[in-house]
């Protein structure tokens, strides 16, 4: 029984970390209809900045998180203006080509500037160490990641469903021409959404760095995982992404415990099974 609880907690923690990193991609893919394979690259940039600020400048974890989000967004603005704007509404394959190209460039630059070694982000004092749950210990950072996941999920849900910006965003997504006719400046809506998505990527990159350490190949190594999670959830749906992360986290963790040698099989068989049952993902809306 203890083992079951223990696995459940591991699954929850793993799923939430996946959620925090992937949710930004759900925003770009679902709401902006851009297959953004460079999502991981932005998460990686966030991780590098946080590592530099916290480790090399010694400025503390909180400052590092904020700096990572802000600077990554600043870096992303020219990329959005010059490159992404050209692929809004283009065929998916064109978007794939462009965003893979961007990813390659970012990897190359990261390798050149930061070197090929792993970079860590020193945690703030209270996040270090482990907490005793009675039947097992868990690192406090994992608990922190779970909380971050919940906060991000609630915040996004609120922003999209309850604010006037959310209304404009959903209108722009459903019918850009109509929204524009109604006075919504869709270009700004897209730019802001992109900034939010990139900011979330950077945030996820920093929070998830304990599990997915920052190194130049981060951007490609986890690209598939992010893409899978978001699609299984149903691109653009926050509850969908949350469910997908928790389910896939649970399948992966349980599989890894019961039959680690077949770990990959479980994960991908689950993906196939879920998509066969929900061809549009958990929360996919019929178009």
């Amino acid at each position, binding site marked *: 029984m203890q083992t079951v609880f223990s696995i459940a907690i591991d699954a929850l923690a793993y799923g939430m970390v996946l959620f925090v990193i992937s949710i930004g991609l759900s925003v770009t*893919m679902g709401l902006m209809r851009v*297959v953004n394979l460079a999502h991981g690259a932005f998460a990686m940039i966030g991780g590098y900045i946080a590592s530099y600020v916290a480790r090399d400048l010694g400025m503390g974890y909180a400052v590092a998180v904020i700096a990572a989000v802000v600077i990554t967004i600043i870096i992303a603005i020219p990329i959005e203006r010059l*490159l992404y704007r*050209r*692929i809004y509404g*283009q065929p*998916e*394959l*064109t978007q*794939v*080509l*462009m965003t*893979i*190209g*961007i*990813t*390659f*460039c*970012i*990897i*190359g*630059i990261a*390798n*050149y500037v930061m070197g090929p070694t792993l970079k860590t982000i020193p945690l703030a004092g209270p996040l270090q160490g482990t907490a005793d749950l009675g039947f097992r210990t868990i690192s406090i950072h994992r608990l922190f990641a779970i909380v971050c996941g919940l906060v991000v999920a609630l915040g996004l849900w609120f922003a999209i469903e309850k604010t006037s910006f959310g209304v404009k965003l959903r209108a722009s997504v459903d019918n850009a021409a109509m929204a524009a006719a109604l006075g919504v400046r869709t270009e700004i809506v897209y730019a802001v959404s992109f900034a939010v998505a990139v900011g979330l990527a950077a945030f996820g990159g920093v929070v998830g760095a304990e599990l997915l350490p920052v190194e130049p190949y981060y951007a490609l190594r986890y690209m*598939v995982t992010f*893409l*899978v999670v978001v*699609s*299984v959830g149903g*691109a653009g749906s926050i509850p969908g992404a949350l469910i997908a992360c928790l389910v896939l986290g649970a399948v992966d963790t349980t599989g890894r415990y019961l039959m680690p*040698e*077949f770990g*990959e*099989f479980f994960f*991908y*068989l689950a*993906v*196939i099974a879920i*998509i*066969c049952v929900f*061809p*549009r*993902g958990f929360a*996919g809306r019929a178009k």
Partner: protein
Amino acid sequence: MTVAMNNQTTLSRPRGGSFKRDLIGVIVIIVFAALGYVLFPDNLALLTRILAVALLVLSLDLVTGYCGVATLGHAALFGSGAYAAGILSAHYGINDPFLMTMGGIGAGAVAGLLCAVIMLRAHGLPQLVLSIALIYLFHEFANKASSWTGGSDGLAGIMPDAVFGIYEFDLYGHTAYFFGIALLLIVFVLLRILVRSPFGMLCRGIKEDPLRIRAMGASPNAALTKMYVISGAVAGTGGALSAISTQVVALDALSFTQSAEALVMLVLGGTGSLFGALAGTLIFMLFEDYVSAANPFHWLTMVGVLLIAVVLFAPKGIYGTAAAYFSRRREGSQ
């Protein structure tokens, strides 16, 4: 452009004989092959590799370019062909290169059928994800079946016999190169026939509007499954060529990376055209070879810049954009 009427009951054939274009295509391939042989006699290994990958990209073009199925798992078909050809030689002592190729074709077709059954259960992004899941399952399966595949060490001990008992697969790669050229030409001609055939027309219809095809009483899924099997045979040919020419097969033949690269090459060249697929493969692989030899440490950035540049300046792919430009020019001058 006007259509002259021969008489009251039959329509004239459209202008521009397609046979002529086939012939031009074959000649272009032969010229390029000869140029490659004369200009880079010491790079035949690379050129043969390009041929094998070109077959994979052609095969991908059949499902992605002609049928509109986006996939990031197409190497599953290529790798199945490669392993089948390799296993025939390494485990069963069947070293005849033609039999090995047949084995690759068969295995590729079976893998294609298997992928089709799963891939056609969803559309769009979820379909893309299904393809990713498939390629990882294939990869893991090959890794697990290490007594057959050699697992992560790769399958060694592939020793193809001389072609017709005369031409050895040697260090200099002449035989492998000509063998590959022959395979590519045969496949190219067959595919030209295929894309023009009634079935090719049906698939183009499916790509544009599967619902309309259903309303015409044809089943898109049945057609796509068939196309997947054909595509598997083509990819399997490429896999077999790879196994025969390099005499080794490893897990990378079944990898996501290989699949994604093939898709990048296809989009780079231009989807929905056999020439686009060939041009994309050639340009990408030569570019990659050149920049990675020039700077083995930071060439990835250059490849990234190439991809971005293509999207910005040649949105239909290099061949697609060039073809559109020339046909506009031609029409303008008429």
